[in-house]
């Protein structure tokens, strides 16, 4: 990591503000309409998306075999033909692989020597409604298994009830339990509904020491949306201005296309700057998006539209 970790700060409620949704929606819509990426630039940005991707499987039917297959894809996200066609000197790899705690050991094993970190969800993912000591124990278990990144979920009730101290204490305790592993705080923004809630939860999670703030579990009815992402990016910017500390951002859930990958990167570039286009500060939590990126890159190389079945499954 290029930057020092966010140590957190005491709870500071005076920074909470009201967020205007129609204005945020207008900005989000115009953001992606204002920037266009063509040809080699589009290909480069799609490659960057792969490097920032947390390739994810978080399903009830996950098995070690399924996780191993995902890890193999994380090591070789593109075909050799496409890699050569793009003029790359080596095979790219994804930013991380993200799994349930019981799958961490399998993933660590499958990724050995690749340099790809394993991220684990924890704290009673996705709802988080478990006793705190069990949630903290789950974090410690995942770290023990070899997870370098822990994606925790916050207690939505704390946000909906305005219990900011409780939220701050909870995330701070989780951060402590993570030890050297990085903490990504999932806000489950689809449950928080208002952008004002999203903004407040973002700030409090950062004040409590989150290394990343993340939109969604992928299990809410509404997952990552650009207005939500915009609001969280602005909170990251404000937190940095107020404290000097740097926090990363991870949208997750609902993003399926190469176009989504470009849109989210444009958001990062415009609202936070170049630093937030690197995997230490930006991750895309996705599973099916990679397949679409692969097809677009294949098209860039061959000039022919690609078929899913000609590319390796994740």
């Amino acid at each position, binding site marked *: 990591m290029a930057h020092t970790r966010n140590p957190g700060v005491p709870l500071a409620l005076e920074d909470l503000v009201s967020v205007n949704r*129609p204005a945020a929606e207008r900005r989000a819509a115009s953001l992606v*309409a204002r920037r266009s990426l063509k040809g*080699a*630039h589009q290909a480069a940005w799609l490659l960057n998306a792969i490097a920032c991707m947390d390739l994810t499987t978080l399903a009830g039917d996950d098995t070690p075999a399924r996780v191993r297959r995902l890890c193999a894809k994380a090591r070789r996200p593109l075909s050799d033909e496409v890699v050569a066609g793009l003029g*790359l000197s080596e095979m790219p790899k994804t930013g991380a692989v993200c799994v349930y705690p019981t799958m961490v050991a399998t993933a660590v094993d499958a990724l050995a020597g690749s340099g790809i970190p394993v991220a684990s969800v924890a704290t009673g993912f996705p709802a988080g409604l478990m006793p705190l000591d069990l949630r903290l124990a789950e974090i410690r278990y995942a770290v023990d298994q070899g997870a370098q990144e822990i994606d925790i979920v916050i207690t939505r009730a704390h946000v909906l009830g305005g219990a900011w101290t409780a939220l701050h204490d909870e995330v701070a305790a989780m951060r402590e339990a993570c030890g050297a592993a990085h903490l990504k705080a999932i806000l489950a923004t689809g449950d928080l509904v208002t952008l004002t809630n999203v903004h407040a939860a973002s700030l409090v999670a950062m004040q409590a020491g989150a290394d990343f703030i993340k939109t969604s579990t992928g299990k809410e009815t509404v997952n990552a949306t650009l207005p939500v992402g915009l609001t969280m990016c602005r909170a990251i910017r404000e937190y940095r201005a107020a404290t000097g500390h740097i926090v990363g951002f991870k949208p997750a859930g609902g993003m399926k296309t190469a176009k989504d990958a470009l849109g989210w990167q444009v958001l990062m570039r415009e609202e936070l700057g170049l630093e937030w286009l690197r995997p230490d500060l930006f991750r895309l939590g996705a599973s099916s998006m990679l397949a679409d990126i692969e097809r677009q890159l294949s098209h860039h190389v061959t000039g022919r539209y690609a078929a899913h079945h000609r590319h390796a499954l994740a």
Partner: protein
Amino acid sequence: MITEILENMSYGPAPESDALARDWLARGPFGHFINGRFTKPGVLFETRDPARDAVLAEVSQGSEADVAAAVEAATAAFPAWSALPGYHRARYLYAIARQIQKRERLFAVLESLDNGKPLREARDGDVPLAVRHFYHHAGWAELVAEEFPGQEPHGVCGQIIPWNFPLLMLAWKIAPALAAGNTVVLKPAEYTPLTALLFAEICVEAGLPAGVVNIVTGDGATGAALVTHPGVAKIAFTGSTEVGREIRRATAGSGKALTLELGGKSPFLVFADADLDAAVEGVVDAIWFNQGEVCCAGSRILVADAVAERFTAKLRARMESLRVGDPLDKSTDIGAIVHPRQLARIRDLVAQGVAAGGVLHQGYAPEGCFCAPALMLEVSPANPCFSEEIFGPIAVVTSFRTPDEAIELANNTRYGLAASIWSENLTLALDMAARIKAGVVWINATNLFDANAPFGGMRESGFGREGAREGMAAYLRPLDATAATAPDPIAPLPQPVAITGIDRTHKLYIGGAQKRADNGQSYSIIQDGRLLGHAPLGSRKDVRNAVEAAQKAGGWTRMSGHQRAQVLYFLGENLSARAASLEHFVAAEQIEAAIARCFHYAAWADKLDARVHDTQGQHVTLAMKEPFGVMGLICAEEAPLLGALSLILPAIAMGNRVVAVAPQAAPLAVLELAQVLACSDVPGGVVNILSGPKADLAQTLAAHEDVAALWSAAPELADMIERESAGNLKPVWQVTDATGQGRRFLEVAVQIKTIWIPYGA
């Protein structure tokens, strides 16, 4: 290559192809579009691509003869076009909308090339809004007979549009004109004639009858020929306030209807409780949209002291990420300035602002006809950049301490086009919206437009509205609006005659008190050879005093319609009680009619409701009806008491304060009103009554810069009054039915303020 891009993550070029547009341009040089066909190209001038400093095409300079031919064609087409059932006109407008949609990319590219605006804005803004305008007005064509009974089209409309939104302004002008049944002669701006010529082709494709739409290209001289052509019944102009003034003078006394959409220096208010990041984007959409070449651009940023430093820091950071350059590149935020002359004007004004103490922070722009976005800090109201419209991507910033001071600064301008208010407190924001002098107010947003939302200005930003029902009204007139008959000359002041009977003392009525004329003179009032009495000989200074008194009576405007109704009923009651004394001056029937009129307008006082318009997107879009403030009224000579009250009552019922010039030859009954007004709880200053030389008093009122609107029932003075009104561009209504009553008197006693309130939890 790719590994290099991965390092810097640059956007790279993303140009839109101009091949289609180049093919189309090869049809040049272009003639005019008159009577359904293109004329042979005449004297040519170049239209240029400002971004590349290259000629795009040659177009014809419209001569007086060209304008005359176009007006002739439009005149010939008018009877059949206006007689078509609305449904048939609707089908043509619908066809035009569809045809533009089919060529949307060509329109967008051509607009971007000719104007220098980013393709993205032409593609996502100008063209779809123009299409929406034709669809919306296809609807009005269908409904006009049903929804505007007793109204008829004007005839031939002369329309002159600016270079900042060429196609969109064309749509704003042509769509309602055609829907109402008018025919048009349109002159596009000298710098940007191309999309109008492409539109002419659309008219052919849509099968529009020949002569209904005519397009004559050219410069200001062509426009002037159109404005002064006697065959034109209405002029609609969008452009600079200076040219608007010239047009007002040129059309004075001609009987031509006129609407003007002029310049602005619109305030952008940021309160401490605003979503500051949202407000920053608001500034981007306000002044860094269309290169700042936007009449309603939020160009004066007024920010609460408490957040001024934080807000300007955010704004400066945001300015750095704007990309200025090739308009056809899809990643361009700000394109080229329309013409080097405009760029020079911007630079000159900015230099003046800096010389006056402004601190300039400027972004980046490439070489050529481009202007870097900029913020000018520490700009006080005395700085020319605070008052002058720059029409470039330059915003000035100043701070305020309280909401009252914010309003004071916001209204410290000759203009009144638009305003943008940022606060998460709706109570505060709506209060500000009510107090700002502007035709359009956006709350937590800026530059929102829709075909079903009225757009237009107050003060020197012009008069008349475009869009929605209110905009349609500007292309219609009452069926009984007869052509002006040759007016009677004003009678000279009478010679002295010996007094008979008991003398009565009449004085001017100013600020709720009876005052002698400032010059200490009176004149004789003679009726049927009999001396009725003497009236004070009012002069300039009495006009000044009356306007000042009216200005101070703002409490009347703030009263509710219900409260004003009570006063008007009481006025009627007291008129009745004093009927006997009034009968000395006017007939009993006239007094009875005057009393009835009090009841009529008392009834209306709380019923001329605002509208809520159905616009695209999640907004409440209100069209409020606000009084002008201080109005001048030149009363009719006929039926003196009823004539005067026919103007005074609707004006004050809507909350205006008035200075009324009583009929010169028979002012006594009106002066007699002073006593009735005083005992009827009409607050002092709400109604002021002057007598004396009508033309002199009317001239002073028409020229007065603190009088917001003027009604005249003196057709013999129309030319002079309209010419003088150009000073502050007050709307003038020539009253044709000076003793009439009804809703139309009320509609002209108010101006529309459109308030946009977006919502979303």
